[in-house]
């Protein structure tokens, strides 16, 4: 009998529960959620505003999930851990003890300190369900929206507000949109597409100051009714940092998702993790990694043997009907493929595929992902063929045989 405590109620937490229950079906699991919602899928908040989904469908697991998995949910925030006593404490200073603990606190929006920000009546972030619901309340056909940050969050936000509001302007310090996942050409391609759909961009600039509902950007002023801060996110690492656990840009974890402190595991956006595509340790705040990491942590917490050692960045994002798929890192040599009303670039270095960007024709792109993830030597496949068109024929006969004739 092991007492499990999980701090957090999102993807990594669910992954952990399913991991634990795959080995230990009886021991009690207590889960702490700072948000007062059944577990839901964060990336869906923009779809919610577009009415492409509903609160019901947004649920990341069915209503009876906790019950089925015998999980006690406590809708309270954990503020402190005592790793010697093996206890955690709520704001109300209630104590709960654990044998194995998972910290899956995720990340929070980063709001850069800007002059006069306090003069803005209300600004929004776009991370949580509550954020989205608040935003929905105020947005109307006359609203002028200013979004700070042309990253995934900012643009998804822009997309979902587009039909609801009067005007949307997105500003970013970088010289291009989606700078974290696209290279220059790709972002230009994408920018054109977004502009066609009525999004305005101000790039290579920042808000120098706010004055009420006016933002000063360089020498001109931009009025707005709604301000959305989508500059980026920061891992929530305090709980571990406070008790002296190793923390950099995120909580440090080994390949078993264990922190530097005994019996404490961590997974999801709050961690940093080894990215094999560029062999650097860095936060990879992406849902698939959160689940896989959480699941791996759960299995190890329950005494199983599991490692998560092939994490890479993976993104699939659709904006105004145009799909982008990217994975890995954009380093090494480039192979660019011309595709009709789309875009494709492969990045490879010393015989391995490192990353790729595909815009438009996204089908079967996962085959590229697997090349990166499995570190497939490019000279073992027909790279020219696969570059043009992701296909299994590019692999050697014997590999094909196991892929298609073997149990996988």
């Amino acid at each position, binding site marked *: 009998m092991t007492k499990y405590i999980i701090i957090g109620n999102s993807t990594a937490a669910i992954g952990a529960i399913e991991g634990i229950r795959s080995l230990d079906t009886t021991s009690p699991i207590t889960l702490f959620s700072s948000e007062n919602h059944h577990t839901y*899928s964060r990336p869906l908040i923009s779809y919610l505003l577009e009415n492409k989904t509903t609160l019901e469908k947004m649920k990341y697991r069915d209503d009876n999930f906790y019950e089925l998995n015998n999980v006690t949910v406590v809708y309270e925030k954990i503020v402190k851990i005592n790793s010697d006593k093996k206890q955690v404490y709520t704001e109300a200073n209630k104590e709960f003890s654990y044998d194995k603990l998972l910290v899956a606190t995720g990340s929070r929006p980063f709001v850069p300190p800007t002059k006069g920000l306090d003069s803005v009546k209300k600004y929004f972030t776009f991370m949580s369900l509550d954020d989205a619901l608040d935003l929905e309340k105020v947005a109307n056909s006359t609203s002028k929206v200013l979004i700070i940050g042309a990253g995934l969050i900012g643009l998804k936000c822009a997309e979902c507000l587009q039909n609801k509001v009067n005007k949307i302007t997105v500003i970013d310090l970088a010289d291009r949109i989606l700078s974290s996942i696209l290279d220059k050409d790709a972002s230009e391609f994408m920018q054109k597409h977004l502009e066609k759909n009525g999004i305005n961009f101000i790039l290579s600039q920042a808000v120098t100051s706010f004055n009420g509902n006016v933002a000063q950007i360089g020498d001109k002023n931009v009025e707005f009714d709604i301000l959305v801060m989508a500059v980026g996110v920061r891992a929530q690492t305090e709980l571990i940092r406070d008790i002296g656990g190793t923390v950099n840009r995120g909580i440090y974890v080994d390949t078993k998702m264990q922190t530097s402190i005994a019996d404490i595991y961590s997974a999801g956006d709050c961690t940093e993790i080894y990215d094999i595509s560029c062999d650097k340790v860095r936060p990879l705040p992406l849902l698939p990694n959160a689940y896989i990491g959480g699941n791996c942590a759960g299995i190890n917490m329950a005494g199983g043997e599991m490692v998560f050692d092939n994490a890479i960045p993976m993104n699939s994002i659709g904006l105004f009907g145009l799909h982008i798929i990217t994975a890995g890192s954009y380093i090494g040599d480039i192979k660019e493929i011309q595709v009709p009303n789309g875009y494709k670039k492969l990045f490879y270095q010393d015989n391995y595929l490192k990353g790729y960007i595909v815009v438009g024709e*996204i*089908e079967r792109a996962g085959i590229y992902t697997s090349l990166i993830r499995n570190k497939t030597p490019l000279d073992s496949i027909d790279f020219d063929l696969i570059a043009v068109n992701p296909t299994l024929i590019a692999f050697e006969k014997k590999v094909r045989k196991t892929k298609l004739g073997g149990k996988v």
Partner: protein
Amino acid sequence: MKRVYVNEEWCLGCHLCEYYCTFANSNMTNMAELRNMIIRPNIRVEENNKISFAVSCRHCTDPLCVKSCLTNALSKKDGVISIDKDKCIGCFTCIVSCPYGAISVSANDIAQKCELCTNNSNTSPLCVQKCPNGAIVYEER
């Protein structure tokens, strides 16, 4: 568990599997209704200088697509990975993660994949039943 396996040695590249798959997953009563239709099968034939074989979902033991699914639309029950069309919002994270390229975009812009004909009126995968040369089989391995 029984899975669909293909043997390129016997694949004739006739593409019949694609048409039968489309038919199986349509609600047509007569295959001729495929006339003048762009088909979107869950099994696709790959061809390159005289090599050909069909590819469909391998129903992996450790399915990345299910783990990556944003909405829990993809799930695995008794070894069969199925998709809840109602939940899928077409983010296509599954497409990024599937190493076989076995998940594709449906007519209404969400993900679609082979469910071994458990989701239609056929008793076993129609592509297997109709393969003229036993290149596609449905068996335990």
